[in-house]
């Protein structure tokens, strides 16, 4: 086992520190709202500090290797251990989850959605943080499963308690879809465990042994995992929970869902399904790619048909995750790098879009696109931030979105050996058409909302002046880091590619990539 650093406490602390915050908050009376929020934000910042310490100590020259590895007995009867580590693929997502949690919490300072109760709201966000961070560092399938499931209940409550009108339906749908996926995933994990000699659930061990499983069995096991991860991504046709969940979730829930939770699925493909079952991955790749491009086109067309801004952004997530999955399905280092970059970029940009949508809703009390117009006149800063995010989302060169989308399309030109070039080139063309749609729906959205004169009902002197104000202090604090990151990664993508690339190379060892 490659123990490079002896700071291996850092990951454990970084993952479980939020739970300590929850414990402290349990003892604070519900009425002390300011204190509760402060403790929660302090915990999230402390967690982020541990994350940044991890990044500083991370050996970037050796990003392909697992670092900060810790391994202890956990459930020895079933040969599962507490085995964690971080490499170039995990690190950006691990940090992303921490950054997003801090920013969402700062945003929540004066945006606790109805029916209030910040104690519960902030506690759930901290629990979510533990689940998200844990999933990205787990090196043992059972540990991965536990963390993967840990995010379910907090998100269920966030949507169901603090969500919109149709929240109960949306939260249940979210929960049942994900749970169904995880049940199949668990059976697949178990089958994998027994087919590799019932010796260990450790991912590196399974990567070594997985190649020995017969092709048919691999394909079946992959199918189980596929459903589990594809529901989470979500891939067409398992995506139907997403628009409902996003539309009904409170802003904070939508941001976390878009920025991090969806990545748990794609991460599962990259970290577990593909390296452990390379032959099945090759067999499945054309179908995954096919569903991915269907998702791109379907998501884009869905966007064009939406009348609700949040629902539109939700459908755009389906399309964007389609690009990510297309990159993954090429099984090339190029495509995988693009996909990983796309995951982070989508997290930043779509997270930002949901923030803006939340603020729009707060001001106009509606997200119906045709009722809102002239935002640039009424709230120029918010309007331009929306414009900026729309540009980033449609993949404008120079902003982060571009580096996820463009190379993903390009990678389909030359998929991994053994995959049909013609099929993937067709996908490439379809995906490229998808970008045109993306430009269409995002620019159209921006045009309808931001341009023109303010709608009569929201014009000055119609009783909304109190609510309609430009970006406030907490919003600036929460958004600035995301906006900066979108530009920085757009201008200098190498910053992330150099971390990703070595780790991607290790992941794709079986494909000669």
């Amino acid at each position: 086992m490659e123990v490079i650093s002896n700071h291996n406490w850092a990951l454990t602390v970084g993952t479980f520190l939020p739970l300590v915050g929850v414990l402290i908050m349990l003892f604070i009376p519900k009425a002390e709202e300011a204190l509760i929020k402060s403790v929660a934000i302090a915990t999230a910042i402390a967690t982020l500090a541990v994350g940044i310490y991890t990044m500083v100590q991370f050996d970037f020259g050796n990003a392909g290797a697992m670092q900060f590895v810790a391994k202890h007995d956990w459930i020895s009867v079933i040969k599962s251990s507490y085995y964690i580590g971080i490499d170039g693929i995990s690190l950006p997502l691990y940090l992303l989850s921490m950054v997003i949690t801090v920013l969402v919490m700062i945003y929540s300072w004066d945006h606790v959605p109805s029916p209030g109760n910040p104690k519960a709201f902030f506690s759930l966000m901290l629990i979510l943080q533990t689940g998200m961070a844990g999933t990205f560092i787990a090196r043992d399938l059972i540990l991965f499963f536990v963390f993967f499931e840990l995010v379910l209940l907090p998100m269920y409550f966030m949507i169901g308690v603090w969500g919109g009108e149709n929240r109960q339906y949306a939260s249940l749908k979210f929960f049942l879809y994900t749970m169904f996926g995880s049940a199949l995933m668990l059976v697949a994990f178990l089958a994998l465990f027994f087919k590799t000699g019932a010796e260990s659930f450790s991912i590196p061990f399974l990567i070594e042994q997985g190649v020995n499983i017969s092709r048919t069995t691999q394909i079946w096991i992959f199918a189980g995992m596929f459903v589990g991860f594809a529901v989470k991504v979500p891939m067409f046709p398992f995506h139907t929970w997403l628009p409902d969940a996003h539309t009904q979730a409170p802003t904070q829930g939508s941001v976390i869902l878009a920025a991090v939770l969806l990545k748990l699925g794609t991460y599962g493909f990259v970290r577990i399904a593909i390296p452990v079952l390379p032959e099945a991955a090759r067999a499945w790749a054309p179908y995954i790619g096919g569903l991915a491009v269907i998702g791109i086109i379907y998501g884009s067309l869905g966007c064009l048909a939406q009348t609700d801004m949040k629902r539109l952004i939700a459908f755009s997530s389906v399309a964007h995750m389609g690009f990510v999955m297309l990159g993954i399905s090429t099984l090339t280092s190029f495509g995988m790098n693009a996909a990983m970059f796309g995951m982070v970029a989508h997290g930043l940009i779509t997270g930002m879009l949901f923030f803006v949508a939340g603020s729009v809703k707060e001001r106009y009390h509606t997200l119906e696109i045709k009722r809102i117009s002239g935002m640039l006149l009424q709230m120029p800063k918010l309007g331009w931030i929306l414009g900026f995010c729309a540009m980033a989302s449609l993949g404008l060169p120079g902003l982060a979105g571009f580096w996820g989308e463009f190379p993903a399309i390009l990678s389909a030109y030359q998929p991994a050996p053994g995959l049909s070039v013609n099929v993937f080139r067709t996908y490439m063309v379809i995906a490229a058409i998808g970008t045109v749609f993306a430009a269409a729906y995002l620019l159209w959205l921006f045009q309808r909302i931001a341009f023109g004169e303010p709608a009569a009902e929201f014009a000055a002197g119609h009783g909304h002046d109190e609510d309609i104000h430009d970006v406030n202090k907490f919003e600036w604090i929460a958004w600035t880091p995301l906006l900066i990151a979108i530009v920085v990664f757009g201008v200098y993508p190498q910053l992330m590619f150099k971390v990703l690339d070595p780790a991607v190379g290790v992941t794709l060892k079986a494909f000669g990539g």
Partner: protein
Amino acid sequence: MLSTIATAAWSSPTIDYHALAPEMILGLGIVLLLLLDLFLSDARKWLLTPVASFTLLGAFIPVLTLALNDAGTRQMFDGRYVIDDFSLVMKGMFLLAGYVVVLLAADYIREGDYYQGEFWFLMLSSIMGMVMMASSRDLISIFVSLEFLSIPAYMLAAWRKRDSRSNEAGIKYYLLGVFASAIMLYGMSLLYGITNSTKLTEIGASLGSNLSSIRALAVFFVVIGFAFKISAVPFHTWAPDTYQGAPTPVTAFLSVASKAAGFVALVTVVYVGFPGSHAVWQPVFWILSAATMTLGNVMALKQTSIVRMLAYSSIAQGGFILMPLAVAGETGVAESALRAVVTYLIVYAATNLGVFAVVMVVARKTRSGEISSYGGLFSYAPGIATLMTIFMASLAGIPPFGGWFGKFAAFQSLVSAGTTWAYVLAIIGGVNSVVAFGYYGSILREMWMRPVPDGDTSPVPVKSSLAVALGITSLATLLLGVLPGLVIHFGDIAGLAGAFGR
């Protein structure tokens, strides 16, 4: 026959007093309860409650010392009464579950003026039957233990004499229970006729894997007899009415301890007595398991009364516990199947007792047994609602709460069998665990997302004994989920599974 008995020299069996200590302490406690009840004035009858709880805790001490003692398996009476790891784990579980039930029942019984002395006497007798069941390896002692644990339970179910529902509960439970005993006895008599022995190991050796129709019938009848006890579909019809009519602490007792005792008996008989006959019982368990979890879940979905929903939930959980038994006869699966059953029973006991503790706390305030009475609980009693959330999530099998590991262990032994039937059952189980969230989630939805039905948001009083019960069960549920290894160390129960090797 008689002459041989008369002429045979009588030698008294050696008795291992350490091994029998739990039973003896229980017996002393039971006698003490009866005596005290005679002499205590009504105003001081509450003293019986601590006597009952200390008896249970006292009996737990020798279970611990026996578990820590490395002497290995202890056998008595020619191997018909065995104290091995399996029996110790189950005895410990029965005693602790009994203790939690005493905590649940303490105030209920005192306030209702429900013949305290007799109640504790019957409850401890029933627990005594369970403790004996865990060690019985002989048809006669199994049958005696089963009646010992059942007959007091029939009476406990009908404890609220003036309530017709409680009477219905008792009568239904009694009639179906006796019917089941009769079927089982018939199976046992066939077994004795075939093998000329009542000792399970001898029956196992004699039956072998030779399955003439009469042998298959005997095995089938015995298994079906126990299926009533564990309320497996289609022998479950008594459970909802009994659970609903019985006093709530008794329902908790029946759904956890009594059900576990049924499983213990079933596992013992199948593992020690019928290891070679798996061609008969595996398909039976497969069908029972699939039908039980599916029907239990579907019926639970439509319930509006919390206790009735929990009754069907308990039926469905029984189906999950049966899952590994449907493959236990495959090579190399016996041990993991046994571990899965034991693990699941322990996790389920901790969680379900917690659920009933919450139900009692909430019912004290709302005076209602409807699920809708949980509306808005989180807004005025966040602590209770959070505990209920933990218990519901555990029953639904969501990590990191105990239940997930029980389900995991069951799935693990299914997949390890690797047969097509095993995979099909695993898929059915997987789908069912999603369906189950439909009703567990409905409780969560009421508590977190619905308004308070009558606008009464006064705080919920929690009696100290219920608070202790909640503390024990929630801690156990969490601990079993996060560090199952700690507890499952007891589950390295090779002893019983070894029967397959012989």
